[in-house]
């Protein structure tokens, strides 16, 4: 493994971004960015579940809320970089693409991947979030008080 530099916060951000991307997006953006390198599976894509937890009262003791589906995989590039992916849902091609991006982000491909995969994903996520927030904001109640006549 060539995980020598501590790129944890950065890596956490890109893995999280790819986990939440809509179906097919990481595959499409990766293939548009560069040709896929050869790789070997450390863990072939597998579908499983994660138990999601909440907290009583929002802040108190944890409890089990229910599970969600997750696809995960791990692979290694010929140059030794290891890529991991955990993505939401049952999406093996997306998990494979996300693990490739994760591995390639530790190589010279970092600039092209940032520009052609991560930044577009980030922008799309921001747009989705903002659109919903703006629709919600339009349903915000503006209270006004009626003045009652006293005569």
């Amino acid at each position: 493994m060539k995980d020598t530099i501590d790129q944890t916060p950065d890596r956490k951000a890109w893995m999280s971004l790819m986990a939440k991307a809509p179906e097919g997006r990481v595959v499409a953006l990766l293939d548009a960015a560069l040709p896929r390198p050869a790789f070997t599976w450390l863990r072939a894509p597998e579908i499983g579940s994660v138990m999601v937890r909440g907290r009583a009262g929002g802040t108190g003791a944890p409890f089990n809320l229910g599970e969600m589906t997750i696809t995960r995989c791990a692979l290694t590039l010929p140059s030794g970089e290891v890529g991991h992916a955990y993505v939401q849902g049952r999406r093996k091609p997306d998990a494979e693409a996300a693990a490739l991006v994760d591995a390639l982000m530790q190589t010279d491909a970092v600039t092209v991947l940032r520009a052609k995969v991560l930044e577009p994903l980030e922008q799309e996520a921001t747009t989705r979030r903002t659109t919903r927030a703006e629709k919600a904001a339009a349903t915000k109640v503006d209270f006004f008080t009626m003045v009652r006549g006293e005569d």
Partner: protein
Amino acid sequence: MYVAVKGGERAIQNAHAWLAEERRGDTSVTELSVAQIREQLALAVNRVMAEGSLYDPDLAALAIKQARGDLIEAIFLIRAYRTTLPRFGASGPVDTANMACDRRISATFKDLPGGQVLGPTFDYTHRLLDFKLAADGEVPQAPTREADPAPVPHVTGFLNREGLIEEAPHDDTTPPDLTREPLEMPADRALRLQALTRADEGFTLSMAYSTQRGYARNHAFVGELRIGTVPVEMEIPELGFAIEIGEITLTECETVNQFKGSKTEPPQFTRGYGLVFGQTERKAISMALVDRALRWEELGEDNVGAPAQDAEFVLYHADNIQATGFLEHIKLPHYVDFQSELELVRKLRREVEASQGQHQEAAE
């Protein structure tokens, strides 16, 4: 006496073939796609995810299609699928204070930071059938307004500042899991909340309604109801740090309940909590009311013998898959069981008739 019964295979196969045909319905009507169900019957999908206890909108939509719209059957399919999945781990508790809210209302405070946000609600509609929906039509775009990106604070936080409401102190105890260990009494609050969040909506609603009508009355206000998305974060052992593994929609309801105080607690407001997968408002409010009713013991309240206070009654009857499994099994062949019952009744009848015959003889 054992009687081996064979010969149902062909009938069963043919029944299932007919089921498939009936599921499809009139072939001159366009077939429904799973994506259409996911997008256009989203609240049914949400219910199936919540009670199926598995967040996956595509799977829930498929289950609804397969079940011909029978939501309990669809929940059954999801529960069965869920058991085939390897469990990768558990997430960290979701942070609902940082929810990206589609809807957020409070029945206790009119003016509050973050405001009253109605979201895509049925409230204030006139409940008149809209015949325009029967015709194909373009939907006008929903209006937008500039949004404040700041997180929306929890209403209970304001009351906490005055010390007027019971606190929910931070705790990191690993919760019990009823999908791994059978549900046993006494059930702590974490276990009760897990059972309630996957409980049947109708049952939970009726239990909650019973508390409002006076059975274990605890006078609930909806302190806050919020619907929106939260990221789900999990520690990845092979990486040594946590990443977000997805984003889910949740409905959260916090009730604020009148409480005169008890031997152990000062007069203050107490809390009920509901948190459910998807946009599932009726269920989340119901869950919060039932959660509060079940907390009588830890708050030092009296048990007035109300059904909603009886954890064993509520939790053992709340799961619609357990209930329907046991209920519906009685329609399956019980020929041998029934044969022995029949023998018994005939024997009792013979005995009764014989003794009546003796009485008659004695009388003559």
